[in-house]
Structures are given as structure tokens and as C-alpha cells.
């Protein structure tokens, strides 16, 4: 992927498919590292399946259950000398605490580090595509923090749906302004 934000979009779509009602997209940057974590309370994966998700052949045409998103993210992180981890609890074994956490850490100083790209579009695309999910986005940079919780928006908006075009535009504007303030 040419931008990390596309990897984020891809991984978060797995949370949507897992029927999560809350998804946390947490980005944490220091001067040297970039950490992305996508966590959800979806159905989770059983241990046997979890072992196969980093294998690109659990995802090819005949047996595709997830995309190539995870193998690509793993590669992107390792290319920078970073790390990758995915943990999951399946609903059959953990009825009250199921879900999946995907974490990738990148070394920002590596020449193979892909820039984050258009994260604002990624976040708004996710909200617009799945307005019933609670999206909790938080991006912590050395200079400051940008965050958004769609439940807080819903409190203010009342009956206006989140995928309303004007609401989406407002969210986009809000995030862009938040980023411009810390730059």
C-alpha cells in the first residue's frame, strides 16, 4: 500500500466484518516510532484461524476469508525494522470479552517507512461506511493529539445520522482543523 492510512482502512474493515460495535483506531507516534493499533469487540478468531491470518495463503482466491491486508501490514512493519502482533478472543470462548487487537510498530527513520497519508479520509470513510459502529479514533503525536469519538458526536447530533453528507463534511473539517492546530 502506498500509504499507511490504506492499511488502517483495510484492517478496520476486518473489524466491520467481525460485526464489532466499537472499534478503536489508536495511532501513537514518537520522534522515531509510529505505532498503529486497531482494536475491536467483534466476534474474534479461534486460535487455529488466528495462526493462519499472517499466511498469505489463508487468504487466496479459493479460501479467502480475510484480505491480503494482514500479510501486507506485517511486511510493511517488518520492512522498517518494526514489529507486528495480532491477538484475538473468539466469542465462543470469551462471551464477555471477545474481539481482536492488531498492532504494528514502524521505525519512522527507515527509508522503507511508508508515510501515513490521508488519515482524515480514512477515518471519514470508515464512519460513513459503518455509521452504526462506535469509532474511537486517537492519534497522539509528539506535538499534540487529535481524537474523535462518534458516541460523543451522536450525543450532540441527536437524531441526525452520522452518514449524513453534511455531518461527514463537518467531521472531515473538524479533523483537518485539529491536525492543522498541532502542526
Amino acid at each position, binding site marked *: 500500500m502506498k500509504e499507511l492510512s490504506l492499511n488502517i482502512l483495510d484492517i478496520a474493515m476486518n473489524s466491520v466484518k467481525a460485526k464489532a460495535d466499537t472499534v478503536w483506531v489508536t495511532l501513537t507516534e514518537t520522534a522515531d516510532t509510529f505505532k498503529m493499533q486497531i482494536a475491536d469487540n467483534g466476534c474474534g478468531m479461534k486460535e487455529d484461524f488466528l495462526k493462519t491470518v499472517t*499466511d498469505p*495463503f489463508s487468504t487466496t482466491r479459493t479460501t479467502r476469508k480475510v484480505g491480503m491486508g494482514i*500479510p501486507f501490514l506485517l511486511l510493511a512493519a517488518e520492512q522498517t525494522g518494526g514489529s507486528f502482533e495480532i491477538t484475538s478472543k473468539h466469542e465462543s470462548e470469551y462471551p464477555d470479552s471477545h474481539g481482536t487487537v492488531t498492532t504494528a510498530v514502524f521505525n519512522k527513520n527507515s527509508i522503507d517507512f511508508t508515510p501515513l497519508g490521508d488519515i482524515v479520509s480514512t477515518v471519514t470513510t470508515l464512519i460513513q461506511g459503518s455509521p452504526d459502529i462506535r469509532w474511537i479514533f486517537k492519534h497522539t503525536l509528539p506535538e499534540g493529539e487529535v481524537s474523535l469519538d462518534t458516541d460523543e458526536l451522536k450525543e450532540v447530533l441527536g437524531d441526525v445520522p452520522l452518514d449524513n453528507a453534511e455531518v461527514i463534511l463537518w467531521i472531515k473539517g473538524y479533523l483537518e482543523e485539529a491536525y492543522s492546530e498541532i502542526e
Partner: protein
Amino acid sequence: MTVKELSEKCNFKTAAMPDGDREIDGCYIGDLLSWVMGRAEENNVWITIMSNQNIIAVASLADVACIVLSEGVTVEDSILRLAEEKGVNILLSDKRTYETAVAVYETI
């Protein structure tokens, strides 16, 4: 032109050739796997410097005729075993990507 013929005429080394009689049609060059996955066409020769296991998956999905690893890139045995298992041909070229592409262009 088959993969086997291409390999001989271009002096590529054979790393894995489970399907040497595969016919070739055109060529694609790229190292960003997600990009290649969407753009390489069926029966293409795919020239790349990437040599991790994801290339086997991308080659299968895009249904290319073979992978040519250029610039003297080497590949681990475990990946070659995977290539044999999945029917993906892998050739090796000591030439730079540009010269490798020219050789493919002049041959096919």
C-alpha cells in the same frame, strides 16, 4: 513463448519451475505488492526485487506466468518450496531490473 524458453533465451537461473510450459503474454514490473496485485495481468512475466512469501500469493492471485527476481536477489528455500507447491515459476536474473526488462522485451 513458454517460461522455460524465456529462461533459456535470457540466461535466467531457474529457482522454481513447477509449470515451465506456461505461455507468456506481456510483462509487468513492480515491487509494491498491493499495487502489483491489482495491475499485473494474467500470463505476464512479473519482474520484482521482493522475495518474501507474499510474492507467491500475489503471483497466484494475479495469475502471472512467472516471477523474475532481478538485481541478483536470492530467495529462501522455504519460499521456493512454497512456489513449487503453489505452481509458481521463479527465475533469477543477475542483471539490473532495467536490463532484465529489456532482455524480456527482446525475447518475448
